[in-house]
Structures are given as C-alpha cells and as structure tokens.
C-alpha cells in the first residue's frame, strides 16, 4: 500500500469514527464545546501515532499471548504523559475533559490500530497510519464540536459569533444541542451525509 493512501484513507473512506465505528465514547462526551474537542483530537493523534511507532518497533519481541497487556501498558504510559502535559499547560481544559483523558487508554481506535496495523508493519508506515487515523477521528470531533457550540451557545472557541441583532429578531440558542444525547444525533447526521455520497458504504 502507498504511504499516501495509508495517511489519507482514514480521513473519509475508512474513517475510524463513522465507518469503522471505533472510539465513539470519547468522540461524543467531550464535544459540547469546540475547544475541548480540539484538545482531545490533538491528544489522541499524539497517542495513536506514538503508540503505533512503539508497538511497531517491539512487534517482533512481544509474545503473542500477552500482547494485549503489553499494548495496554505502552498506551497507558503515553496517556499519563499526555495527562501530565495537559495539567501543566492547559489546566482548565484538562478539568473539562475530566476522566476522558484517562479513557484514551481504552479508546478502541488506539487498540484497534495497534492490533490491525502496527503489529504487522514497519515503524514509518505505522506512524503515518497513526497520524491518519488520529486526524480522521479529530475531524469528526471538530465538526461535531463546531455545530454543537455554534447552535447550542452561539459561540465558537468562547467568542460570540451570532450577532446580537439576530437575537433581537427573536433567534434563540438551542439549549438541546449542549445536552449529551444530541452528540449522537449530530454524528448520525454526519453518517447520513457521508454515506449518501459514498453509496458503497451503505449497509443492506
């Protein structure tokens, strides 16, 4: 497989969230605002890419029977680093993300890519695969976060974008968009749009 395909495939045709249906938990829970979505996306990109490289370097020395534990330990160590960095440089966001930074350990994207790709490919390809899948995941997070913050609070990254004049004319923020269940429905809409353009992905 070409390196370009490895890097760009997960952005649309093979997107980890809406096609492979991995890593949904965190994709939904942190997206009520745009800022935590972006921070979460960057953290996951870093963890997936580095974990892929580490496991790919170790792949010939890991005994098959204990590979899950080895993978979990590698991922957990990386997540601890990310967690400490966030606490040091972005404390407010780290508080908002609460347990979801820790839950990157059990994010199915990380484990899924390690199992499906890093165990059978070299470090450079694994790195590209990790970056690609991380970005594919981040893309969905940012889209969901964008719409939920725009429609739910009328702001983006905390700045007011919907003009006051619109509110004077009777426009109101849709408070429902901030509630957790709406994340699922926004993702469902993304799936709907995506699959009507890519008919080969539709389920029978």
């Amino acid at each position, binding site marked *: 497989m070409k390196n370009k395909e490895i890097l760009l495939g997960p952005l649309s045709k093979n997107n980890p969230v809406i096609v492979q*249906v*991995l*890593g*949904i*938990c*965190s994709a*939904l*829970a942190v997206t009520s605002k745009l800022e935590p979505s972006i921070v979460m996306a960057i953290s996951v990109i870093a963890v997936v890419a580095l974990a892929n490289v580490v496991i790919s370097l170790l792949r010939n020395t890991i005994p098959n029977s204990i590979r*899950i*534990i080895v993978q*979990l*330990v590698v991922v*957990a*160590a990386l*997540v*601890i680093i990310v*967690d*400490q960095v966030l606490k040091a440089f972005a404390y407010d966001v780290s508080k908002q993300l*609460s*347990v979801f930074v*820790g*839950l990157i*350990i*059990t*994010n*199915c994207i990380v*484990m899924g890519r390690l199992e499906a790709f890093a165990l059978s490919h070299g470090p450079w390809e694994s790195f590209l695969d990790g970056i690609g899948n991380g970005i594919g995941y981040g893309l969905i997070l940012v889209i969901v976060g964008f719409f939920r913050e725009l429609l739910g609070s009328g702001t983006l990254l905390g700045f007011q974008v919907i003009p006051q004049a619109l509110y004077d004319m009777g426009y109101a923020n849709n408070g429902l968009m901030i*509630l*957790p*269940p*709406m*994340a*699922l*429905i926004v*993702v*469902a809409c993304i*799936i*709907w*749009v*995506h*699959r*009507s353009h890519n*008919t080969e992905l*539709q*389920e*029978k």
Partner: protein
Amino acid sequence: MESLNLFIKSIFIDNMIFAYFLGMCSYLAVSKTVKTSMGLGLAVTFVLTITVPINYLLENYILKPGALSWLGEGFANVDLSFLSLILFIAVVASMVQLVEMVVEKYSPSLYASLGIFLPLIAVNCAILGGSLFMQQRAFDSVGTATVYGFGSGIGWLLAIVGIAAIREKLAYSNVPAPLKGIGITFIITGLMGIAFMSFLGIKL
C-alpha cells in the same frame, strides 16, 4: 438508605451509556440480539462490581497523596497518584483474565456462550470509566464504591438490552438507505438518552 440512593442514581441518572457514553463500542457492536447483549451486560456488571472496590482500596492505601502513611512516618509525603491510570488498567486486565479462567473452569457452557466478548471487556471504557469516576467522586467507604460499581453495571446492562430489543424490531422497518445499521442506532440511542434525561429532575 444512602447506598440505595447511590444505587438508583448510578443506574438511572448517571447511566454509563446515556449520560457519559462509556462502553459505546461494544454497545454498538454487540447489541444485535437480546441474548448475547444480556450475556455481555452481566459480564460487565460482574467485572465492574469487582474492579471498582479493588481500585478503591488501591487508591486509598497506595496512590493518594499521604495514603502510604500506614507504612511509617517517612512515607507520609509520597504522592503516587500519577500512577493511577496504569495501575487501574492493570487491575482491570488481570481481573478480566481471572474471571475468564474461573468461568472456563467451572462453567464451560457460560464460557462458550460469552465467547469473544469476555476478553474484550478489558478494553471496555465503561470498566475503566467506573474506576476513574470512583477516584473523582472520592467515596467514603469501600461498601459505597461497591454499590456504585454494581449500579453502573446494571445501568449498562439495562441500556444494552433495551437497544438490542429495539434493533430486533427495527429489522422490519423502512429506514433510509444511508442511515441503515449504524446511523439509525445512533439516533435511537440519542432519543433513549433524551428519555433518560428526564430522570435528572429526581432529587435523591
């Protein structure tokens, strides 16, 4: 009375799936029939009920700042809380392994019916999430932590059995092609989430 309140609260108000989206991956993948989802739900409940109290003890006697003071004066200032993620996931992984071996030895029929889902529980975010929420909420005794773990498990079981029952009926309905399968499941989960939000008003 306190425990009963916490139990009901963790089932309905703080439902793992509808309020926090934890364990979505297996929730979406396994909820095709009621029978298998029942088996997985019971296994998740069981593992949560064991791991939350164990991690509670680890947290309070080893990890918390000053928790090691039972070893002597010199240890009173040790803060190992940065190790909590790696220790929690190790406990979860080894507990799942243990449960798997015990079930295989004493009840081969149950083992056969659960199949692949048993080892997969190790990477179910609901399990690690239970331990992380326990850490965040700082329960006052190991009993309370057990009740919380059990209640969260029952809540997860309720959610997955509910969606499986709806999906079995959904096979006969006429869904737009791009939404078939995963898309409509997202929307239904969202609607169920909104329904569960009505429990938020209950003060316990």
